[in-house]
């Protein structure tokens, strides 16, 4: 099983005592109706109401800001971290 530090991509991460206490409370809580799972999805969009699947081109200023935010740029290319093969 994967540990939480790997799942979270956080070095040395460990489950915390405070959060575990919350989980204990939820385990103990009474759950009267086990069949109601997934009923709380009234925010789903109806098929008739889906937005059109179109590509919207960002304005130039927006593109420039996205590039500015990117961690690294070299010779006009955005540079991602070095990829490893496993």
């Amino acid at each position, binding site marked *: 099983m994967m540990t939480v530090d790997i799942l979270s*991509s956080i070095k040395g991460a460990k489950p*915390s005592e405070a*959060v575990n206490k919350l989980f204990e409370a939820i385990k103990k809580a009474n759950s009267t109706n086990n069949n109601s799972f997934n009923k709380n999805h009234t925010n789903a969009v109806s098929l008739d109401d889906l937005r059109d699947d179109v590509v919207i081109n960002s304005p130039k200023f927006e593109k420039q800001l996205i590039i500015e935010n990117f961690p690294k740029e070299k010779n006009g290319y955005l540079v991602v971290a070095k990829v490893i093969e496993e």
Partner: protein
Amino acid sequence: MSQIRKIHTQLKNKEITCTKLVQDRLDLLKSNTHNTVNSLLDTFALALAEKVDAKIKNGQEIGLLEGIPFGIKDVYMLQGTLATASSELLKNYKSPYTATAIQKLLDAGAIPLAKENCDSFGHGSSSENTIFGAVKNAVNTDLVGGGSSGGSAVNVAKDFTVFSIGGDTGGSIRQPAGYNNVFGFKPTYGRVSRFGLMAYASSTDCVGPIAKSIEDIRIILNVMSGKDVKDQTSYQSSEISASNILNAEEIKTVGYFKNFIETDAIDPEIKSAFLASIEKIKATGIQVKELDFFEADTLVSTYYTLAMAETASNLSRLDGTNYGQRIEGENLKDTYSITRSENFSEETKRRIVGGNQVLSQGFSDEIYLKGLNLRDQISENFEKDFKEVDIILSPVTPNTPPKIGESLKNPLAMYLSDAYTVGFSLGQLPTLTIPQGTATGLQITAAKNNDELVLKFANFLKDTI
């Protein structure tokens, strides 16, 4: 008294110029020692103010919100300005676009003055989990400003902004409003578009106003509401008119949760003040019913389990490649994990780890799925209650604001302090904090989509308690 209407009249009658109004508030924000500001939008704000002045000078009509200075919690996008979420990771992040709710306010002519301090990514109830220094309470600077929209509530309370836009996932507008004696409204989930609000827990994230009067809350809410194709959970709502919320005769029954009050966890003064308010309401002829509700620790655990699961997923994109300040490691995975461990705060890491714990194999059934199940039961409980009562009234918090430093030492106590706000978030209900009734105010809640009734009852209480 509506601050917006007062300033609008002063501008129209040329008693003040918009430039002076904006400059004065910017000066107050800049020199304030409550740590409410992450970045000032001075150049932008003054340029907008000049345009408003030119319009007035030319004898043109100005809209009600035109020239009104406001603040924005630093989790919203405003194109070209910093959007840090009070975090190290996004310290230098610039918004590439503008949030829908903010754009609507800009279109109405309101002038943004500052990006406001808050708990990092909304993770906190005290506005101490921030790289910009703990927000200090408006009334007593030894105490916390509340959270996560602490900077916004303090700015409104101190008149540094006329209103501010906060974000509420589990109480983050209502609790700081209560701690600083102002109004704070969490609308029905979906009434205001979330587009451009950095996601914390998407199924309860709400955009809402903090202000000094019910009328100002109404004005701002109307401007921000509406369906938005960029947030498919948003819906079309009708405008709430001023005259519609003046008469509360249709409100016949009010309920409150007995177990919120009959507990040792509540401060005795908040308890007696709450019960005294109930007596005053009864005296007007309104019927008051005691209601049964889930235990406070069940509510808090359900909320945090689901919110942590959602935030673990939402924040997974903050890895130094897609977003955020990258710290290079030996390889891609190493880069991700160094970037995240160095740049996230302890509280944010605690929540991400908690979220991944409950989403992982072996844990999801007994914790996450049970949490979803409990949420459904909570919603059903609300549906049942609103067949019996028109309004539910609650305290905002069990206790008065803690001293700065206390919440960081005891995260569990901080989570439990959200006991009275998280239930209404899970139910996606409209809830308003009013600065009356107890030391940290009262919460007024109505059934889903009935935001108008909440404001109506608030108006009624103004003269009743």
